[in-house]
């Protein structure tokens, strides 16, 4: 594919608001998973909750979009000068030439959960409930597009936990086809009861903070995040060391709705395709940000796929031990973490993992390492067997 620059990017999750806090937490190995005290949830599990979201105020003109997911989206957009940079880009290119492609799994579904609790005696949802502006998946892109004043094409991709990785591919194709000149991509997912009780029903949530790739891994810890990037053609960006998106791979397991193919067949295909589209050999990848959810079967399938393609020596880790699994936001959050890794030469060691499972034949980092990086890969895999891998690069001196 034709490389694109991430000319701006930002991330907000339980480990920090914006890039500086996120980088500091990763460097200092500070995780943010804590026993779940969200809403009225009574489950023995840990979550990565973004603090003080209640204090975020939506613009008065967008009051109908009021929900936790959009408060988190707005908080994320306000970090690192992201909104201002997009508005400058829109002034330069025209607001109609910038697309908005975002991922989420549950959007503002919490509003519907709360509305069902507040049903009238006749069984109706309470007055003021606004499905279109909160729960519907597109509400996220609608809200972000309005906040940023953009007028180009927009959509939400909702393929469970690969959602906000796949938006990078969709945006690259739209730019390649000449439909748009640039795109705001990203993902926002926030805590809600459906995912907490749903993953619990599937027996996939851990009691203790999740331990990806550990021999005693016992499931996921759910988190929430908002992460965004502005994608522009490389030649339009002045910074020769801008982070580049150079490869995207997408595949389907065609196996099971909620379990990965045991050999990681789809994961392998997605990683291969990402390398092919970047024009790279496996040996050129220097760090892999694993999907690494911390369930027995996910980590085992991913390890098989990674070791088949990369052997056993490429440093790899999951940052979900720090942030939790942010579901539909994970692809974008971890792409931004990869961008930070490239910019700062940081290979974040996975948290909570004390004894790497010897059956998982990858070089799983449990300590943070410092080394110059030029090419990294990020994996995101989801329910329905939906897989997406991204290759990101940074070339010192702009070579």
């Amino acid at each position, binding site marked *: 594919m034709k490389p694109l620059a991430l000319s701006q990017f930002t991330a907000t999750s339980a480990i920090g608001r914006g890039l500086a806090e996120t980088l500091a937490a990763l460097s200092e190995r500070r995780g943010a998973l804590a026993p779940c005290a969200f809403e009225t949830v009574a489950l023995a599990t840990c979550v990565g909750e973004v603090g003080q979201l209640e204090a975020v105020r939506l613009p008065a003109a967008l009051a109908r979009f009021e929900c936790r997911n959009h408060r988190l989206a707005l908080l994320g957009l306000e970090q690192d000068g992201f909104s201002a940079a997009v508005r400058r880009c829109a002034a330069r290119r025209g607001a*109609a030439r910038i697309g908005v492609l975002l991922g989420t*799994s549950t959007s503002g*579904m919490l509003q*519907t*959960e709360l*509305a*069902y*609790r507040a*049903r009238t005696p006749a*069984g*109706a*949802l309470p007055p003021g*409930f*606004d499905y*279109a502006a909160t729960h*519907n*998946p*597109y*509400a996220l*892109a*609608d809200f972000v597009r309005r906040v940023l004043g953009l*007028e*180009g*094409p927009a*959509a*939400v*991709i*909702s*393929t*469970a936990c690969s959602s906000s990785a796949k938006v990078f*591919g*969709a945006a690259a*194709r*739209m730019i*390649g*086809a*000449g*439909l748009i000149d640039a795109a705001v991509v990203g993902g926002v997912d926030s805590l809600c009861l*459906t995912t907490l*009780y*749903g*993953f619990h*029903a*599937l*027996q996939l949530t851990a009691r203790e903070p999740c331990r990806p790739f550990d021999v005693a891994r016992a499931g996921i810890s759910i988190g929430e995040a908002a992460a965004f990037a502005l994608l522009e053609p490389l030649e339009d960006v002045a910074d020769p060391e801008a982070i580049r998106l150079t490869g995207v791979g*997408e*595949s*389907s*397991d*065609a196996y099971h*709705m*909620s379990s990965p193919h045991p050999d990681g*067949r*789809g994961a392998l*295909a997605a990683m291969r395709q990402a390398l092919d589209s970047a024009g790279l050999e496996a040996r050129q990848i220097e760090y892999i940000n694993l999907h690494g959810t911390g369930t027995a079967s996910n980590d085992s399938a991913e390890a098989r796929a990674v070791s088949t393609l990369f052997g056993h020596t490429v440093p790899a880790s999951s940052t979900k031990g720090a942030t939790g699994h942010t579901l539909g936001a994970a692809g974008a959050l971890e792409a931004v973490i990869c961008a930070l890794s490239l910019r700062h030469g940081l290979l974040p060691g996975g948290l909570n993992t004390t004894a790497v499972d010897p059956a998982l034949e990858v070089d799983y980092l449990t300590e943070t390492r410092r080394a110059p990086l030029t090419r990294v890969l990020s994996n995101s895999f*989801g*329910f*329905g*067997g*939906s897989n997406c891998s991204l290759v990101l690069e940074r070339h010192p001196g702009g070579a």
Partner: protein
Amino acid sequence: MTAGTTGLKAYVRGIGLLGPGLADWTLGAAVLRGERPHTSTPVELPAPAALPSAERRRTGATVRLALAAGLEALHGAGLEGSGLATVFASSGGDGAICDEICSALATPERQISPTRFHNSVHNAASGYWSIALGATAASTALAAYDGSFVAGLLEALSQLASTGRPVLLVAYETDYPEPLRTARPIAAPFATALLLDANPGAHAAAHLQASLTGQPADTLPESSLEALRAGVPAARALPLLKRIARCEGGRVVLDYLNDLRLAVNITPCP
């Protein structure tokens, strides 16, 4: 915005259709040509025979609807499904499952069925499609509220421009049970599918070229079809399907976002 400046174009090699009074593309095309009256016959949702029985039992109305339309377009084109990329476009996924989950979460026990939970994902139809056909290629599931058909068409056309390989677009929506129905009234279950390719194959129905426009969306003169078009996001495709059914060329404008529409130039194939 100038029309025709993008590389967004494709041949339509197969079409699927399923909606009230539109039992499949052959019967539906006759209705769209005005050769048969449009009746309000309810939609019958076939259990997807291509799925293993355990999986088949787990599928809800939305998945069955999407798979039926997708399979009709696939068979119409005479293509294999296993290597085919797919785009699934739906405004909101399965409302019945959403209602069950939210109802359960409003009880003290909060017991959610694990199967309901994994079927609640927006990409459920995409997942079941890939299992049914052994389809391991890229598959996506997206949403743009009432503009979901056009959002899916743009994704499918830009995939085709990027890979040169055929793409199956499936747009679908089922109606919601109360109390959600009041908040999101969907007129009826409706699905359509287009198998899009850079090559016409043996019997393509039409060639499409798309561009963005600010002009208002076309409506349909037949009141029952217009009620469907306006009442179901996936049925926003009807003005396009009508032209194809009638082998008419020309330009249609399809609904998309609050301030943006898609113009499609249609050239019928001989």
